[in-house]
């Protein structure tokens, strides 16, 4: 009982501090970071001021409006409501009121936000659809509007921001103008802007899946780092002879091309659409190169070198196999590599996992496809029609904040002097984050806005500093030198009309089911590769052409935006 009372008092105290902090006066009870925050605020308004001036000079009319903006923090009593499944408070605090990131954010921007987070574990789409069936919406909603934005504007859910962005979101507007690809992604086919996106600073951050190998086994076998497909076979065979290990990977891992690039192919088991050199959309599984790639996997299988469990293997299954020393060469994501390294450390089995470059056919070749997601994420923050006219500017300013220089640093690294220090002009996390008992990722979740997909621009340095150096090296080995091999993916911002979408998704689903089924059967030998032509024929019968046609038209519209 006493404990409960104490907790309630504490909670009340925290709320009071928050409220006081929001009033934008130096609160007495605040910890040491208060000083840092205020000094930061000063530089912030400087920088924001600079930005607005730049923009202002570009356009006379805008200059009048923008000049009135005195920078952050904004002096206001208004409270904005926000529904979001992003920037969730770290799971180590009870609510956002105790999360340093959210509390300080209110101080930095001067705007109080009333957050609503869907309960963890609920289906996000369902939670969103339930919310929007109510006529009274929060002022801002953070959701995957991309792909259907035009309908959401038509249905009166979110506002068309086309005319407002240049005026009230100068930083974001400038960012879009400087990055044409991002600009294309964040407007509809008819050229309407509808929200604030999330962007990765470099495509390195999107190329987080690739091959990896046990360096200690390579050393023991006296083998070099495998480069060609032939090297791979030698390595797999050597590991099998010496350790009984087999080649295993998770073949259905999203649209991972796996080792396909070496053969000039683009997909493995999951239906993969790729864009060829003439900007034409193709199905990876209908290429002759894919057949060669699958033939190779089938050969490994027939020689007993391929793990028979790959059919049902998921990330956890792979991790177990790796920890048991049943796998020495695999294809997984950076988080996987990180956990392999941790498992090896805790079990002390001496496994030394390192990234391995994508295989090629002949020495000196380049792979044609690496795993590389679209650096644009479909989650977009929109302003709703329920947001009253007089609060729209404030909402725009708040959403523009992460795109300002100060906001970018705050969102990615937190508060200077607390969670990061500037070293030679570059922000570096302090030990508060890197040596935290919670682990770097969890600690960063407390002080920065980058838990998950966040908002604004995700800094490359922020991602890399939280990872094990070996993991960063693996990412480098996959990405650098293969930058162009990441451009084959179908952009997530391509929009189909609802009718097109229904028709294409029906075909897509049927084809995807069939492709996965057949690809695995080809690999395990249950279905002979002699039937490959019949497989192509069935794909055509299922309407592959029609689906490509619909999606191609949508892609062309995207290019013309």
């Amino acid at each position, binding site marked *: 009982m006493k404990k409960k009372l104490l907790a309630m008092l504490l909670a009340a105290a925290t709320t009071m501090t928050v409220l006081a902090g929001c009033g934008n006066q130096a609160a007495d009870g605040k910890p040491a970071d208060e000083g840092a925050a205020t000094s930061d605020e000063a530089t912030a308004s400087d920088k924001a001021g600079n930005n607005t001036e730049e923009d202002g000079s570009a356009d006379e009319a805008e200059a009048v409006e923008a000049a009135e903006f005195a920078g952050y923090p904004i002096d206001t009593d208004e409270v904005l409501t926000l529904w979001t499944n992003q920037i969730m408070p770290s799971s180590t605090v009870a609510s956002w009121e105790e999360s340093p990131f959210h509390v300080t954010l209110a101080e930095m921007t001067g705007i109080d936000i009333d957050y609503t987070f869907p309960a963890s574990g609920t*289906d996000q*789409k*369902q939670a969103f*659809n*339930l919310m*929007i*069936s109510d006529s009274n919406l929060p002022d801002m909603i953070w959701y995957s509007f991309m792909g259907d934005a035009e*309908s*959401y504007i038509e*249905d*009166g*859910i979110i506002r068309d921001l086309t005319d407002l962005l240049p005026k009230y979101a100068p930083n974001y507007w400038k960012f879009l103008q400087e990055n044409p690809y991002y600009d294309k992604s964040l407007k509809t086919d008819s050229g309407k802007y509808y929200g604030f996106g999330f962007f990765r600073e470099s495509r390195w951050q999107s190329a987080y899946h690739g091959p990896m190998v046990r360096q200690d086994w390579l050393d023991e076998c006296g083998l070099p780092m495998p480069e060609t497909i032939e090297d791979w076979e030698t390595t797999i065979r050597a590991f099998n002879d010496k350790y009984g290990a087999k080649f295993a990977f998770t073949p*259905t891992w999203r649209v991972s091309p796996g080792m396909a690039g070496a053969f000039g192919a683009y997909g493995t*088991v999951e239906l993969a659409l790729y864009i060829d050199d003439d900007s034409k959309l193709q199905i990876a599984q209908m290429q002759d190169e894919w057949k060669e790639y699958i033939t190779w996997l089938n050969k490994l299988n027939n020689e007993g070198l391929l*793990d*028979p*469990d790959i*059919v*049902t293997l998921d990330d956890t*299954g792979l991790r177990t196999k790796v920890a048991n020393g049943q796998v020495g060469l695999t294809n997984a994501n950076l988080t996987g590599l990180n956990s392999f390294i941790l498992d090896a450390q805790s079990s002390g089995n001496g496994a030394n996992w390192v990234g391995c470059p994508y295989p090629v056919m002949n020495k000196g070749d380049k792979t044609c496809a690496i795993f590389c997601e679209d650096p644009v994420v479909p989650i977009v923050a929109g302003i709703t029609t329920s947001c009253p006219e007089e609060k729209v500017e404030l909402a725009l300013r708040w959403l523009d904040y992460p795109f300002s220089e100060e906001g970018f640093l705050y969102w990615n690294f937190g508060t200077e002097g607390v969670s990061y220090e500037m070293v030679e002009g570059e922000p570096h996390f302090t030990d508060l984050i890197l040596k935290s008992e919670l682990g770097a990722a969890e600690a960063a979740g407390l002080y920065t806005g980058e838990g998950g997909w966040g908002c604004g621009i995700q800094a490359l340095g922020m991602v890399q500093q939280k990872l094990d150096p070996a993991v960063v090296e693996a990412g480098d080995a996959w990405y650098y030198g293969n930058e162009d091999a990441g451009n084959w993916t179908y952009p997530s911002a391509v929009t189909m009309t*609802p009718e097109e979408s*229904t028709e294409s*998704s*029906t075909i897509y*689903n*049927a084809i995807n*089911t*069939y492709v*996965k*089924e057949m*690809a*695995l*059967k080809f690999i*395990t030998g*249950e279905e002979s590769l002699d039937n490959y032509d019949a497989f192509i024929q069935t794909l055509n019968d*299922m309407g592959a052409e029609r689906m490509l046609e619909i999606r191609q038209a949508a892609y062309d519209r995207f290019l013309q935006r």
Partner: protein
Amino acid sequence: MRGNMTGVKEKSLKKTLVKDFKMNKWKYLMILPVIIYIAIFAYKPMYGILIAFQNFRPAVGMAGSKWVGFEHFTRFFSDFNFFRILRNTFSISICSIIFGFPAPIILALLINEIKNTKFKRTVQTVSYMPYFVSMVVICGLVKTFCQSDGMITDIVVALGGERKNLLADKSWFYPIYIVSNIWQYIGWDSIIYLAALAGIDQEQYEAARVDGAGRLRQMWNITLPGLMPTIIILFILKMGGILNVGFEKILLLYSPTTYEVADVISTYVYRIGILEANFSYSTAIGLFNSIVNIIFLCATNLISKKLNETSLF
């Protein structure tokens, strides 16, 4: 109840109702919450079925969504995999009924024969324990045991089978699915039969023993006929759910190599309707499911009524 009604046949309906209401007013009051509950939670939401004939968009609600008639139904029936998922749904369901339905009856009969109360209770408790284990955990266990180096695979190999991932082989999918289902639910499902067994008149057994009937004879001539009404009602209910197969379990156990036998209507709805938030489409398929289920329920009920006069309604 029925006797009452015939007794007062001459009086007008209205008078009968009023009299009945006066006589049983407290009973009516007791049933009122149930009626309200059913009206609000079962009947009121039924109008939502209408979205099966719309292109429902949550943002504009039912009033604003476009009517499309039977478009979603045609889309479902003309889907490339329609016959496959329909066939799989029926196969899994019928196999589950053939093997899974008698299992708890047999267990109940066996438990009934145990004379030592302590042992009987232990068996009962142990057998219904798996029911309380989460489906995700069960499927995790099944997956691990059936891997190429798993426990069950080891047993299969010891019995002369081939070493492979059992779950990746489509001919193993039904046995694994059904046997693990029986293992999980046998104890729980037998409870209702044990309750019915307790209601059988013990004097009948004594009389049979005097007439020289052995244990098997007693089981055949007294226990089973005593259980029959329960068995039939449960069977009719089971038939009413013929298209509802254990969807989470299939979703957790199937893989692309077993789609051919394991992909069922509900997993299809999950992939297309739920993951893509396609509410109208999933409602249309749900409606189709319900109609088929109702047809089976009524048919079984009718047959059973004709044959042995036990029925739901």
